[in-house]
C-alpha cells in the first residue's frame, strides 16, 4: 500500500508538471550527451569505428519508466544470422556498461529482453557486433531516475533469500524449424552497491551476476557479462535454435564467488 501510494503521489506530482518548453534543435545538452557517449564508446570499444544504424538493432524501452529500478528493455536485431555480440549501455549510469551478450551456435538472436536500472534521464545505446567485426549502434532516450540507488524495500537478508534459484519458461513446445524462445528468471538481489540502508546509512556492497552461460546440449546459446545496472532478480528473454539435444543448462556466477547451476528439460513434441 505504501508503495502504491508513493507511486500514485509521484504520478500525481508528475502530472502536475505541465509538459513544457523543451527547446528544439541542438543544445548544450545534446553536445554534452554526445561527448559523454563518445567517452564511453572509447572506454569500451577503443579506436574501433561504431556506425549508427537504427535498422540493425531496434531498442524498445518506455519513454518514461514507471519504476527506474526495473526498466524493461527489448532489443530486436534485424540481421540475426550475422550477429556475434550485443552490448547495452546506459550512458548516464555511473557504471554505464550494463550488459554484453556473446552469442553461440545455438542462439537465435532475433530478440533479447532484459530489465535494467536507470539512474537519470539518459540516452541508452545498443551496439551490435557483426560476425565480420563491424559495430553498429542505435540509441533511445529514456526518462527515469534514481534506479541505481533505489532501496529494495526489504532487508538485505530478505533480498538474498533463495539466491541463485532459477526458472526457465519456454515460449511453447520446441519444434524443429520453428524459432524457440525462453525466459530465464534468476533470483538474485543484484545489489548495485549504491543502495543505502536508510537506517544505518551504510551502503550494501555490490553483489551482482557477473557471468551467465546458457547452453543447449553442448552448444552455447549465449554468454552474458552482467553489471550492477541489471535490475534485481534478473529476467532475460532469449531465442535459441530448436535443433539441439539434451537439456538447457544455465550457469550463473556473481562477483562474490556465488555460483549456481541448473538444467531444464526442453519441452519437445518429438522427445
Amino acid at each position, binding site marked *: 500500500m505504501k508503495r502504491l501510494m508513493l507511486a500514485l*503521489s*509521484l504520478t500525481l506530482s508528475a502530472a502536475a508538471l505541465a509538459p513544457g518548453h523543451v527547446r528544439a534543435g541542438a543544445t548544450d545538452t545534446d553536445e554534452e550527451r554526445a561527448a559523454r557517449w563518445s567517452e564511453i564508446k572509447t572506454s569500451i570499444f577503443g579506436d574501433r569505428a561504431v556506425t549508427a544504424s537504427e535498422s540493425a538493432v531496434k531498442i524498445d524501452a518506455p519513454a518514461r519508466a514507471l519504476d527506474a529500478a526495473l526498466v524493461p528493455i527489448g532489443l530486436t536485431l534485424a540481421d540475426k544470422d550475422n550477429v556475434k555480440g550485443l552490448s547495452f549501455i546506459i550512458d548516464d549510469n*555511473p557504471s554505464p556498461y550494463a550488459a554484453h551478450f556473446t552469442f553461440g551456435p545455438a542462439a537465435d538472436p532475433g530478440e533479447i529482453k532484459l530489465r535494467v536500472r536507470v539512474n537519470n534521464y539518459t540516452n541508452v545505446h545498443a551496439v551490435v557486433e557483426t560476425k565480420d567485426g563491424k559495430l553498429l549502434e542505435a540509441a533511445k532516450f529514456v526518462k527515469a531516475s534514481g534506479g541505481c540507488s533505489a532501496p529494495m524495500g526489504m532487508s538485505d537478508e530478505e533480498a538474498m533469500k533463495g539466491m541463485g534459484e532459477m526458472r526457465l519458461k519456454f515460449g511453447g513446445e520446441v519444434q524443429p524449424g520453428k524459432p524457440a524462445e525462453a525466459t530465464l528468471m534468476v533470483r538474485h538481489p543484484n545489489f548495485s552497491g549504491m543502495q543505502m540502508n*536508510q537506517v544505518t*546509512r551504510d551502503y550494501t556492497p555490490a553483489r551482482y551476476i557477473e557471468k551467465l552461460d546458457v547452453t543447449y546440449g553442448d552448444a552455447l546459446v549465449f554468454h552474458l557479462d552482467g553489471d550492477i545496472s541489471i535490475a534485481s532478480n534478473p529476467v532475460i528473454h532469449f531465442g535459441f535454435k530448436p535443433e539441439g539435444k539434451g537439456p538447457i543448462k544455465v550457469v550463473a556466477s556473481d562477483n562474490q564467488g556465488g555460483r549456481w547451476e541448473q538444467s531444464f528439460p526442453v519441452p519437445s513434441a518429438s522427445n
Partner: protein
Amino acid sequence: MRVIARTAALGVLGLMLGAAGPADSPVGVPEPEGLYTGPPRGYTPATLKGATVVDLKGLEKLLPENPVLIDVVLADHRPQGLPADRPWLPTHRSLPGAVWMPGAGAAPLAPEQEEAFLARVAALTGGDKAKPVVTFCRPECWGSWNAGKRLVAAGYTRVHWFPLGVEGWQDSHDTAVAKPDPAWTAAVSGRAAQR
C-alpha cells in the same frame, strides 16, 4: 468490511488529490523542530518555516532575479565490491548554473563542514542575506529541506525550497552536467561528501 476498505481507499485518494503543494505527501509529515536527522530519503513536510516552498512555476518566476541555486544531491557512491576494471564514470546533471555541494544537506554535519557550507553560500550571495537562494535535491529527499533550514537559521531572508528537485525540473527544461563545487569538496573529506 470490503465496503469500509473501499471507502477508506477512496478517502486516501481524495486526500491525495486534494494535496496541492509540491512537497505534500499522503501522510502529512510535520516539520521537525530543528534539522531532520532521520533517514535521508522519505516523505517531506509541505512547509519549511521561514522559507518559501516553490513548485516549478514558482521557481520559473524567481529565475529572472538570478537566485543562487544550491544542489545538495548526494554524490554517487562507488560500490564496494565493484571490480577495479569496471568503468566507473559517475555523472550528475542539474539545473543550469546550480552550485552542487553533494551531501551539504546531511544532518548531523561536522561543525567545520557546516561552516564551510555557510561560508560558501555567503560567498555566492556576496554577503547579501536578502539575495534569493534556492535549495533542492531530488523528490522525497530531506537534504534540501535541511539545507534550507540551515540558511534560514543563518539569517537568510529569501530562502526558497524546491522539493521537486532535479526531477521536477528536467521534465520541462534542459539540465547541465554539474561538477561538485571545488570549494565545498575541499572542505569535506571524500567519505563525508557521500553521506
